[in-house]
């Protein structure tokens, strides 16, 4: 088991966000996590990489429980992860090249020539080779996310996390990101977890979909089963219906 979450609980002040989340993910699986906005999807994702400490419960990564580890103890665990943030979170004081090569420059184990070559490779993978010298402020939202993805994959992580990868993008840019994620997962053979409320995206990216509802995993199904589900909660969410009327056919 690559990732296992047991009875994860988290509250912010008086607001309970996660109320006992349980699931597990095998190596190489591609998972989509769906749920309403503000329902705790991003909070759940951040628990997996230790960005947030749980109030209770356990998060196992490759058999190691990371709940309660110190920031310094988490560093080697995080080396297994690559994460694409909702707003890409590129370092705005650096060029695209410096952003993408950040971890390699920090580790100082790779020669500058090799770093330049690897930056070129990953920018090629995301279709943005040639923009190495540009600053993040000069890029569009879609381009920023693609650079964020390049930064996340350059050091060949075992697990890729995507936080709302298509939010705020037009349908064509969303399609590009979806295809890119699928290509990256296939090419690099990584375990991938995407948090999204974009149903089209969730269906395309995920081999399995987890639905977070009221702080718990409400459904854990294959996309084809989930989208055919007659369960009112799932049906309303995947079809974007705010309130079920009597004549709505389930």
């Amino acid at each position, binding site marked *: 088991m690559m990732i296992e979450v047991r009875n994860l609980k988290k509250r912010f002040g008086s607001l309970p966000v996660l109320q006992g989340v349980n699931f597990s993910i095998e190596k190489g699986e591609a998972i989509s996590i769906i749920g309403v906005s503000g329902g705790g999807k991003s909070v759940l994702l*951040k628990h997996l*990489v230790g960005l947030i400490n749980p109030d209770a419960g356990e998060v196992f990564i490759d058999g190691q429980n990371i709940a309660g580890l110190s920031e*310094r103890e988490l*560093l080697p665990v995080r080396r297994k992860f690559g994460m694409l943030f909702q707003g890409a*979170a590129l370092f705005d004081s650096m060029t695209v090249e410096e952003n993408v090569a950040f971890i390699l420059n920090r580790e100082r184990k790779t020669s500058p020539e090799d770093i330049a070559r690897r930056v070129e490779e990953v920018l090629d993978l995301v279709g943005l080779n040639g923009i190495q010298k540009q600053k993040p402020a000069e890029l569009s939202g879609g381009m920023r996310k693609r650079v964020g993805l390049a930064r996340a994959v350059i050091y060949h992580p075992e697990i890729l996390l995507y936080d709302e990868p298509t939010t705020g993008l037009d349908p064509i840019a969303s399609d590009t990101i979806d295809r890119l994620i699928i290509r990256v997962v296939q090419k690099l053979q990584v375990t991938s977890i995407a948090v999204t409320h974009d149903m089209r995206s969730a269906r395309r990216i995920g081999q399995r979909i987890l639905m977070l509802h009221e702080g718990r995993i409400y459904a854990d199904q294959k996309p084809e089963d989930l989208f055919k589900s007659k369960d009112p909660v799932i049906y309303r969410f995947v079809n974007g219906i705010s309130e079920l009327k009597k004549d709505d056919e389930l």
Partner: protein
Amino acid sequence: MTSFAKQQVREWFDGVGRGAILCGEIASSLFRAKVAWRDVLYQMYFIGVKSQSVVAITGAFTGMVLCAQTAFQFHKVKMDTATLAVVSVGMGSELGPVLTGLMVAGRVGAAIAAELGTMRVTEQIDALRTLATHPIDYLVVPRFLATLLVMPLLTAESVCLGILAAYIVAVFLLGINPTYLWYNMLHYTHTNDMLTGMIKTFIFGAIVAVIACDKGLNCPQGAEGVGRATTEAVVYSSITILISNFFLTMLLQRLLP
């Protein structure tokens, strides 16, 4: 105690606790992680070189006004030639470090808090953490070391310019005899006066860096949060410098009489 006062006290203790934890983390990072000296050098340029004009102007004009005011009072008791000695001791042990500390708190403390605060609200600090980089190692330690290293240099510059400007005012504007003025300054200014100032400025540098980094790293969400963190960094650093200066003066007077 009213609930407002209780909240203020709680916030104050929270801040002190966070500052202490941050100091511990900085110490741990200095022992356990490699210091990125290139980043320290860059920060020294930003904090030191870029602060020179403001520190120089502050030092020079403070020296000038201190000289003029001292000379006006000393003239009444025919002690004009002791003016530069007062300026030298005052600038070296009190005004130089305090005013440099306040200027650096305003310019550098605000910049550090705003930069780290923006990084926090745009998830850049979380991105750093996912890239297996400790924010203390990468963001805080270089700024802390750079502030610590440049503060004595900036203070020395401010004190020298203050004395020089005071000398010019005393000799060329007020017509005080330069030989006695210079002799008295050397006679009444002791190494310990300057050492006191240097020790203080070192501590003020640490205060500015720790408070600014703490405010930035714990910045509330949104543009308002960044603005508040920046203001608090400047206000709290300035107040802490002023309060600690009194206690440091009393302590150092005993240690370095």
